[in-house]
């Protein structure tokens, strides 16, 4: 169980730490802040899908974004893709589910995240 479950998890953590160094939280806040509009929304969806930021880092980022005037829908799409779509974890997901299922699940979740973002924008 250790080798098959924990080691892949640790590998993901290493990759995540490298990504966080390449794309630091301050940079995310800068690009998704106030007035980023539709482009910001799209960047949020892409960044959220590719990266995997642990909750205790992503919530402070999100709250920083909010204070900087980012829209609720940008934050919703960012948080949702972070949680539900994982390009970094795709190789591991493929091992469990097979390529077709893993890619399908991620694609459907990306679409759902965009819908969630738009709906949140309408509601709040």
């Amino acid at each position, binding site marked *: 169980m250790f080798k098959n479950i924990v080691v892949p998890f640790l590998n993901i953590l290493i990759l995540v*730490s490298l990504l*966080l160094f390449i794309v630091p939280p301050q940079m995310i806040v800068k690009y998704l802040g106030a007035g980023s509009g539709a482009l910001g929304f799209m960047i949020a969806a892409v960044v959220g899908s590719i990266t995997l930021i642990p*909750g*205790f880092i992503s919530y402070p980022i999100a709250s920083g974004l909010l204070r900087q005037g980012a829209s609720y829908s940008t934050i919703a799409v960012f948080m949702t893709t972070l949680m539900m779509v*994982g390009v970094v974890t795709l190789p591991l997901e493929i091992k469990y*589910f*097979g390529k077709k299922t893993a890619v399908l699940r991620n694609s459907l*979740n990306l679409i*759902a995240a965009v819908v969630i973002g738009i709906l*949140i924008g309408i509601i709040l």
Partner: protein
Amino acid sequence: MIKRSFEKIKPYIWLLSFAVFSVGSFWFGFDPGKTIYQSFTKSFIEMLIFIPFLFIIVGLFDVWFPKEKIEKHIGQESGIKGIFLVVILAMLQAGPLYGAFPVAYILYKKGASIKNIFIYLGAFSSLKIPMLGIEIGYLGINFTLARTLVSLPLFIAIGYLMEWYLKDKDFKINEV
């Protein structure tokens, strides 16, 4: 001989390289390396918290819940109640989405329906109660409530879509 010992350490190659890189960074005062190591330890602490729960849940299901029982409650014929049960199960857990894959495997092995497995993954990704608490703290109750209520029907829809698409494609989840 060398080839064989390489095969043995291959699964750990990333970990070993990272350990060497981190030690080296501290030794030579390489700041980017230190920063990367620090964010690794932060995530690692989170992992230490969710891994025991994960093993407990996988273990519990494996040993204590007979297949017929799981099949009856969250299997093919389980209906609304099955959906409700997997959502509750997911909400009580912690950890990032990949932490749910081993649980998805055990649910699959015990006869959960395709639909319920994907609803479980959806709920696990973004409706976990510990995380909702943190979310309310940072982003407010209105945002959290709106996001949760909008997300849930979409996850359920994804579950139905996945089942509809995969049901005659001999779907399986592998033990990793």
